């Protein structure tokens, strides 16, 4: 079982984001970066599949600046076998060039599975995984919540409006992980130490020009302060009234 997992370094969900002076990027000063949480599910799934198979390799790919090495090492500490950083200091806001760079690298890897998170929590594109599948001409199932691999095929489940969709697919394939797929492990301390000795290859890449240009980043408007509408049973009518006339939610 040879599995590739593509991961991204993203700002921690609990960091307060500031927009850079250019108005198009995040001011990274003081921002804590983490492994994209959905990618964490993908890494965990890959490790479990390998452990279940009793053999194989889990290779982790990241596209980004040198700082992404730390993100890769987090996955090595969890148990991945080796990492590859596709290094670029000029990230693209367009998912297509990223997908092209990854696909070019993954093409010759002879992977049974290529896993992604369902989206990166920084840009929400939900695009790179399916684009890589398309570029490699592989079947693709997104946002999976359950996976069962049997030899050359697999059954995946995905949550859809009001229910569960069950799909069968042939391998090799590209899958993207949703929350609930598994409970990711913590990198144990020995894993953190072992990660330093695992191979991490850095390859410079130049992203081609995509068709999409980022014009502006803006913070959402500040939320208005809450208001207590009343106490006890009286509050119910006041709340209904407020939801109807002010919030127009019901």
């Amino acid at each position, binding site marked *: 079982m040879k599995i590739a997992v593509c991961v991204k370094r993203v700002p921690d969900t*609990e960091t307060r984001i500031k927009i850079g002076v250019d108005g198009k990027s995040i001011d990274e000063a*003081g921002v*804590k970066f983490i492994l994209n949480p959905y990618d964490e599910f993908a890494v965990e799934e890959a490790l479990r599949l390998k452990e279940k198979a009793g053999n194989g390799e889990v290779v982790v790919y990241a596209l980004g600046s040198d700082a992404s090495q*730390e993100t890769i*090492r*987090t996955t090595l*500490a969890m148990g991945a076998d080796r990492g590859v950083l596709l290094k670029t200091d000029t990230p693209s806001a367009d998912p297509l060039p990223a997908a092209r760079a990854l696909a070019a690298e993954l093409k010759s890897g002879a992977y049974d599975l290529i896993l992604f998170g369902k989206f990166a929590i920084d840009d929400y594109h939900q695009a790179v995984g399916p684009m890589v599948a398309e570029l490699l001409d592989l079947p693709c199932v997104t946002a999976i919540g359950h996976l069962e691999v049997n030899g050359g095929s697999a059954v995946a489940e995905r949550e859809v409006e009001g229910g569960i969709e069950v799909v069968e697919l042939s391998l090799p394939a590209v899958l993207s992980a949703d929350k609930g797929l598994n409970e990711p492990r*913590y*990198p*144990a*301390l*020995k894993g*953190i*130490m072992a990660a*330093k000795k695992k191979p991490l290859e850095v390859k410079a890449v130049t992203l081609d020009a995509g068709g999409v240009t980022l014009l502006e980043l803006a913070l959402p408007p500040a939320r208005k302060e809450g208001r207590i509408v009343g106490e006890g049973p009286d509050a119910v009518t006041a709340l209904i009234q407020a939801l109807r006339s002010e919030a127009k939610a019901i």
Partner: protein
Amino acid sequence: MAFQGVDFYGLDTLLNEDERAVRDTVRRFVDDEVLPIIGEHYLAGKFPKQIIPLMAELGLFGANLPEEYGCAGLNNVSYGLIMQELERGDSGVRSFASVQGALVMYPIYAFGSDEQKKHWLPKLATGEAIGCFGLTEPDYGSNPSGMITTARETKDGWVLNGAKMWITNGSTAHVAIIWAKTGDIKDVKSIRGFIVPTNSKGFSSKDQHGKLSLRASDTSELVLQDVQLPKDAVLPKSGGIKSPLMCLTQARYGISWGAIGAAMACYDEAVSYAKNRVMFGHPIGGFQLQQARLAEMLTEITKAQLLCLQLGRLKDQGTMTPEQVSLAKRNNVDIATNIARETRRLLGANGILAEYQAMRHLANLESVYTYEGTHDVHTLILGQAITGLNAFGG
């Protein structure tokens, strides 16, 4: 919301990637596994034993000891950060790891034979064996040199007699490191360490009931009555009061970091409460008196962090002195206790509830203030380091 740490001076940039990764792993562990259950265990007066295998799996026991014995082989700054995060959960949880690592695994590592190391260290690292450290006696606390527990050498081994008091993990442990005099009762040089399986005949332990502090921790009294041990029970390289004191230096180092964890937990709680609790139409955090409290807390935490980080770097270089550890233990536990008390007060009536952390930490820190050398004892150690004059005798 997950704990974000307190880092007013950008000290994260002074930590390397591994150190941060270790800290973050333990931080997450504490958020997920310790904080949800600690309040009820504290009230019940029970150590949460179910977390022992999880701690072992993460590699938290003896994490700064070498990999060849099944340990994580981390540096001392990482080790300190582990203690910090554990004590952010509860001093009892940190105490458990301190005893296992610094007071049981360390003496076996430092004073043990190859066989003892190979036999015990991997088992202690995996949590398969739990250890305790018996130095204090009913009549010898701050002055352990006065101990009256004896080990007499016989034809085929040793016979131990005596009593030990206030022993963390005492009733949980499979193995006890017992310090005893092998010579005359006045002969401090004859103090040696022994590895004593707790199922040995004549060994008994009793839970110390009625604690109002460190309730989520097992504290026990040990009695050794004609406990017969084989010849190889002695730690061959131990000798004199210096040996147990070397263990205490390791543990005190961890406590210096641990206290920061407890202080950060309280500060974090104080800040969020101050922003949300409205009185006289304003969040109480908008009142100068409460701001002064918070400013004081942040200042002391930042100073304590700097102290520990440098102490850790010195330990990693191999130049740290016991007196430097005394300064850090003394200062950090003291400021943490004050921060816990101020947080408790800032929280008003809620501050007395187990649902909040401050009073639990405050009560815990009173034990931490006393064990591993009381605050006063560390004052005397520093006084002696400064003046060259020993003031212990009065």
